[in-house]
């Protein structure tokens, strides 16, 4: 386990091909934070409970502490840094701002990406569905209600724009 040599892992991050040097034991979350300086991927626990490190892996929300960086070889990772286009916030980011779906902001990137995964599968979810989808993402500030409202507002907005 000590002094292991590094491995070059190639993947696409936020639409760009990248190569990152990792130890075999390096978790994806550490590769993203330390190797690629994508610090929106937060570390809130060490038992895969909190969801603060959630990213989209080939479009599906995963906790990036729950897989090794090498397992992401050849796959596409999305973080919230990659959501805004030309400095314009994605509708779901805008919804979290406008509907007060964030306070300290530490859980926010994970909440947003888990919600995007949900909306890709259920474009018009009801409140219960949103709450169930977010059960693996902890927030201690908001009581979740404004987060749920943000997701519902984003769903309506995306439907109007014909996007998902």
């Amino acid at each position, binding site marked *: *386990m*000590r*002094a292991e040599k590094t491995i070059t892992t190639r993947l696409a991050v936020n639409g760009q091909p990248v190569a990152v040097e990792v*130890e075999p*034991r*390096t978790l994806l979350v*550490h590769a993203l*934070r330390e190797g690629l*300086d*994508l*610090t*929106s991927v*937060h*570390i*809130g*626990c*060490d*038992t895969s*409970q*909190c969801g*603060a490190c959630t990213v989209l892996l080939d479009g599906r929300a995963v906790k990036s502490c729950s897989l090794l960086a090498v397992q992401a070889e050849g796959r596409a990772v999305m*973080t*919230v*840094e990659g*959501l*805004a286009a030309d400095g314009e*916030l994605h509708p779901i*980011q*805008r919804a*979290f*701002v*406008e509907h*007060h779906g*964030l*306070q*300290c*902001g*530490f*859980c*926010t*990137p994970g909440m*947003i990406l888990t919600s995007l995964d949900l909306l890709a599968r259920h474009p018009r979810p009801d*409140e219960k569905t*949103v*709450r*169930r989808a*977010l*059960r693996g*993402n*902890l*927030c*201690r*500030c*908001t*009581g*979740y*209600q*404004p*987060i*749920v409202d943000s997701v519902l507002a984003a769903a309506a907005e995306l439907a109007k724009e014909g996007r998902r």
Partner: protein
Amino acid sequence: MSDPIGVRRPRLDGPQKASGQTRYAADFLVPGLLHARLVLSYEAHALVRRIDPGAALDLPGVVAVLVASDLPLAGAGSDRAAEPLAREEVVFAGQPVAMVVAETEAQAEDGAEAVVVEYEPLPAVIDLEQAMAPGAPLARRRSEKEETADLESIHAGSSAAAAAEDEEPVSANVLKRVRRQEGDVAEALAASEVVCSGTFRTAWVYQAYLEPQVATAWIDPDGTLVVSTSTQGAFVTRSELSRALGLPLDRVRVRPAPLGGAFGGKFALIEPLAAAAALALRRPVRLALTRSEDFAATNPAPAQIMDIRVGARRDGTLVALQARIVVDRGSNAGWGVEDTTSVLIAGLYRWQAYDIRAYAVQTNRFPFGAYRAPGAPPATFAIESVLDEVAQKLDLDPIELRLRNLVQEGDVSVNGKPFPELGARQCLERARQHPIWQRRRQLPADEGVGVALGYWPGGTEPAAALCRVDADGTLTVVTSAVDMTGTDTGFAVIAAAAFGLPPERVRVVSADTAFGPYAGASGGSKITYTVGRAVQRAAEAARRKLLEAAAEELEIAPSDLEVADGVVRAVGAPDRSITVEELARRTLRFGSRHEPIEGHGGSAQTSLAPSAAVHLAHVRVDRDTGEIELVDYAVVQDVGRALNPALVEGQMLGGAAQAIGWALYEELAHDEQGQLLTGSFLDYAIPTAERLPRIDTVIVEVPAPDGPFGAKGIGEAPVVAGPAAIANALARATGVRLRRLPMTAPRVWAALAA
């Protein structure tokens, strides 16, 4: 200009946070950074016999294995800042005993695993009641000095036990006693027509901020120690570092980073470790706790045991209150909540006679710390539960009972101080009209509605702020307050209203201890109230400068000018005007005759602004499982003036969610040896989106005379009354009253089965 006060608007930091641009304390790149990992004691109480770096130093990347004697500490004291690594005695499982520093975090972790510590176990003092019983083993050995002082006081005939005749004998684990007394409570209880009593227990509860504690320290080229950290208070952290490390204040610079949640738990706890390591190694060091370490080694809220007895007359007049509160300090000998919790247990009611005792007891658990409204949820759980029983016995509406006995402005609290005006009455009256309360009598079996009233007294501390107009006509507000709850967004609105600019043209920046105006730590619900007041005055001072410059430019007396929407106009002659932007341009240039448009403001309130909040809980109880389902929930709170209702509601919702955690789920449990049983989010349940109901928020506004535009500090009040409201709802639904938190399904099931 439309009044910016009271308008719902998004947080200033929202877009940055939603797009991942915000850099928290663990996110900054620092050249040459080393990473620290702690070796935590697995014994709850022991002497450290030997610390063997073992193979750690041979591992790749490991730079040092540090023990207490390696750190440049000033010396005396056994608190966490003065003794960040245990010297001889460990007093809780989770206490840091060594620190491994390495080139990467993973290497530091490898190193920490290789360190071997030998302990000589001592009896672990875990049970709170046993700990305070005479003859109990001590949770911390006493120094020779303390032993000598004890002997002297015994010889002088003034031992603690002999201090007062009616004081109960206790062990030396009792660190402090508080007594509040008025009238003859025994007589008043004997004369009461109804007496209700009970023993209430609350658990150790974890703040569970999503961002674990993290601090980074380095030495600037001029020799200044710089600490970038996730802290609630810049200046308090600087003072603690100065004391711990024996450095003059001006050699320590604390730079607070955006806070990933704190709730009372981030007050200079781990900074001395990172700083001492950086000083010892002369390289930048980051200490980022893992969640497991944060559970084990930080400072959660303490358990309390409260015996309470209340006497009332048949007409519902409260007469007598007797209470005995035992607070588990854990291994924190320095300070506690006994003063606060012994006031809050009297609620917001008039008492003819009372006798309240509080005891602080040391045990071999974590050093207790603050958590949102410290001491308030437990005390309020006790008094508000008993009041509900009084109402039931008297067949009186519980809201009516509370209204009849409510304190008025000027009534003297059990701490001897008069109550200022507060909005408890208005909150109760609004709660009485709420649909949840209105439908309480038409519920199916096993459903019930509970009500409880709580409050937080608020806090004060002198504060200052700066306002500066830039050449583009925008206003920059500078404070050293840490934004824990959205206070910066509030400051922008306060400054905009006081100066005369739209809030969109106001920027708020946080300074650090090297140059920022003074602000106390973010805690006690005091930032909006105190720093906000300073911001208001700073903006007013800048406005005076603006008017002076405009008066010269327009050749009109300042008293004949007004400012609105970024334009200075002659009163009654709006065509004679000049924009703030133009004035700023004419001011901030070579040879200008105007002073810069800047203002400094300060505040030092002498009156508190208590915030009251009523919780309404509608529960459904599953008799087969004991599970309490929250069907509906509401918080009604007096906030003084809602500067930004959206952010106020955010505090109310978040506070209610934490209250529900206290009530139903959360407990840091230890076994008899002091091992933490619930040390991860797997075992320690905080509410999830799926477990919470929709919560209604009702804002009541009773302005605070000395708050900015009438605003009060509102962050703590909304957590206080939740557990009592849910316990009262459970009692109404099932006839079974739980006097122990959390009211988990197994406990409810057992109570129903009994």
